[in-house]
């Protein structure tokens, strides 16, 4: 058992981990230095500027056991797409379809990832990121060789079923030049179960690669999700990151993109539907390192009950990154008097020939629109629901995978906005 609040506990527990590839020199080296990093920073607290709005007291007051491989004991919805299933952070071969030369598990492809492992991570990672590098035992690896297109949609489902468990997974999407893929990553758990899911996805997009990445979080209402999507983009690479948080007690996502080659474009879409005591903290960062890159961020939040959302969106335009075009939007809708939204957009600009803008709003539904709907004979409750859905739908519309878009529409319109499904 790891006592989360004691940093030494995380360090000593590392010795117990019998990991595959433990005898691989480069990996051991990385793990060792990550552990040293963790020793220095520990788990973050509200005194850290990047965590000032996210209190981890509940997470830290728990003990966690490292997980071992087990088989799936819940039923997943049918899908026509190839699907990988990870149970408590370990690949469940039997439940998975779609494994191929290009789609493997981390355990089986250590030699492929050597050059890329941790290459996209921030220079000063926080405690959870360091722990992820130190502990990561499995995850999916998509490796596309130059010119290769991964047909259709690859789904990866991470199921957390053991209580009081902690899993650290590391995924890599290595898309060489002129490749294309769409990956839908889901995180699911059973409500009522407490666990800690620490998951990082690295995306290394080569010249003109197109990567469409979805991260849909439907964690247990008592679960902690510490996630990261770290992206490096070469010349002309187009990456879209979609980050949809529907449940989980405390969720933190760091979505970073480094635009390293000219003509690269990143799109970051985010949607938070907060209920109960849910707390969602999204930290995005776009690093414009070279000229002629564009970025487009669109994060929306709907907060009900006691839920709370934190958004930090940082855009850095380096000295030489002229002709940058960066846009960021963050809109928050508060539905309850106990909900709270904190947002912190940041622009750091060191070049002069750039177009950068950000906008942030916090507010309620437009009373004029509500009145209009009511004047057309729609009752107040439905009018509210319709407008709330319309607000969220602006992010959903940006989803390119039909099945995912329909599914989210159903979930958000039906379950969350009670009975709107007939209308949409």
């Amino acid at each position, binding site marked *: 058992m790891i006592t989360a609040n004691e940093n030494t506990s995380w360090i000593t527990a590392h010795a117990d981990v019998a990991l595959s590839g433990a005898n691989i020199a480069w990996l051991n080296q990385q793990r060792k230095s990550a552990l040293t990093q963790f020793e220095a920073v520990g788990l973050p607290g509200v005194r850290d*500027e990047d965590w000032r*709005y996210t209190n981890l007291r509940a997470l830290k007051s728990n003990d966690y056991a490292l997980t071992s491989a087990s088989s799936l004991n819940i039923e997943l919805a049918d899908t026509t797409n190839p699907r990988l299933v990870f149970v408590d952070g370990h690949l469940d071969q039997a439940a998975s379809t779609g494994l191929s030369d290009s789609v493997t598990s981390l355990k089986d492809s250590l030699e492929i990832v050597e050059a890329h492992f941790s290459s996209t991570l921030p220079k000063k990672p926080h405690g959870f990121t360091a722990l992820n590098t130190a502990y990561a035992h499995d995850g999916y690896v998509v490796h596309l060789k130059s010119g290769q297109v991964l047909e259709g949609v690859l789904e990866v489902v991470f199921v957390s079923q053991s209580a009081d468990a902690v899993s650290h997974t590391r995924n890599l999407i290595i898309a060489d030049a002129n490749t294309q893929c769409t990956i839908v990553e889901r995180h699911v758990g059973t409500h009522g179960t407490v666990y800690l899911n620490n998951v990082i996805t690295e995306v290394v997009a080569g010249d003109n690669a197109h990567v469409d990445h979805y991260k849909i979080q439907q964690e247990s209402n008592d679960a902690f999700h510490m996630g990261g999507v770290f992206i490096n983009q070469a010349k002309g690479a187009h990456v879209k990151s979609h980050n949809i948080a529907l449940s989980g007690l405390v969720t933190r996502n760091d979505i970073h993109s480094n635009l390293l080659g000219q003509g690269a474009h990143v799109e970051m879409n985010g949607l938070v539907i907060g209920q109960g005591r849910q707390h969602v903290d999204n930290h995005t960062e776009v690093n414009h390192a070279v000229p002629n890159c564009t970025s487009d961020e669109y994060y929306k939040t709907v907060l009900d009950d006691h839920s709370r959302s934190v958004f930090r969106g940082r855009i850095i335009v380096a*000295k030489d990154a*002229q002709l940058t075009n960066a846009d960021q939007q963050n809109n*928050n809708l*508060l*539905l*309850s*008097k106990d*909900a*709270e*939204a*904190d*947002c*912190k*957009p*940041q*622009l*750091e*600009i*060191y*070049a*002069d*020939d*750039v*177009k*950068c*803008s*950000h*906008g*942030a*709003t*916090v*507010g*309620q539904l437009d009373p004029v629109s509500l009145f209009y709907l009511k004047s057309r004979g729609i009752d107040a409750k439905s009018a509210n629901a319709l407008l709330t859905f319309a607000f969220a739908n602006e992010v959903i519309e940006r989803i390119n995978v039909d099945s995912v878009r329909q599914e989210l529409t159903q979930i958000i319109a039906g379950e969350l906005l009670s009975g709107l499904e007939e209308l949409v």
Partner: protein
Amino acid sequence: MSAPILNEKNKDLKKLVKREYKEGFVTDIESDTFEPGLDEDVIRRISAKKNEPEFMLEYRLKAFRSWLKMPEPSWAHIDYPKIDFQSIAYFSAPKEMPQLDSLDQVDPKLLETYAKLGIPLEEQKMMNNVAVDAVFDSVSVRTTFRETLSKAGVIFMPISEALQEHPELIKQYLGSVVPTKDNYYAALNAAVFSDGSFVYIPKGVRCPMELSTYFRINEMNTGQFERTLIIAEEGAYVSYLEGCTAPQRDENQLHAAVVELVAHKDAEIKYSTVQNWYPGDENGKGGIYNFVTKRGLCKGDNSKISWTQVETGSAITWKYPSCVLQGDNSVGEFYSVALTHNKQQADTGTKMIHMGKNTSSTIISKGISAGHGHNTYRGLVKILKGADNARNFSQCDSLLMGDQCGAHTFPYMEVQNPTANLEHEATTSKISEDQLFYLKQRGLGEEAAVSMIVNGFCKDVFRELPMEFAVEAQKLLEVSLEGAVG
């Protein structure tokens, strides 16, 4: 016209026009300055010198003791060598300063200094309806129009005199908005402040004229720590303006001021600053470190506090004029133009804390960066749980001139009430060649065209300044921007 030609032209322009800091002279005047260093003894001496009541000394010592325990803040987006607080002299006053009753008794050299700065100390010569309190190094040298003001019941005097004449008011309000432990520089100020202005507007009085304080650092190696306290009683109105300059020196000098405003029910305070401390030379040598805490409390219902600032000077500006909107329907406003040129750095913005119901705040911030300047907007809008129907609009625009400068925005929004309505917008851009071209083909020279565009960019803020000062600010901006075209 193609871009390269334009750039070539700019280079010539840059060579042609060098920016001059015309307020950079030193007045040779005998002064009574403490030796550098800071301990409890120095504070006792300041307090004794000012003949202060006992509570004031205790207040200072308490602040000093908490200051000793505080770490120097490092979160701002600014870069400067560590300040040695023991190498600063904490008190400096022009010598031979008996009680002044008429202008004749003021040292002619001082009058000359203020004349050079364009401060109309001589009442008869005054064109504007402005009462001036001039603070030279650490002490207030002359307050004009006192009689006219006292007829209206307005108290406008140096805070050191107010301590003698109205100790009960000082005791009641000093530190009530910015407590001694508020932050590192506020604590230091509370311990060592030597003078500043005190304004009290009684119930229902509309101050008959603009009030103004002029701050001047003259002595070498001194720090200036002034304290301003403005109280507007129920239904009162006052507009207050401060201006600042300092001689041109190679070493950095510290300026750490605290301004506290209290607006009671239905009162309104308008506080404008034109800050033109010496910014250092083009290599970043010298200049004033400006670490200032300004905060206004909208204590009563329907009260209003409005901050307007034009920040063109100082090597480093660290300043966040804030409003605590405690009363229902109270209003807070912040209008700012901050210019950084050469190696200047500014980290400035505001805090709007909404506590009362139906409170509203507006933030308009315009940052201009040129040369190697770095300009940061940092602001907080906080809506507390009980602040129903709070409204905020923020706009932070940055204009970049040149490829070596930086513009940054760090707004924070914390909302705990669903009826709140917040909007934040920020843009960063440069002067577009289209705009320049258009103005030039209308017959304007390049400098004039740039100046016109910049003025248009700042219009929303200048509009808020009292008229004479708006003109002044516009000129100041022009001078400060000379040689920055590009």
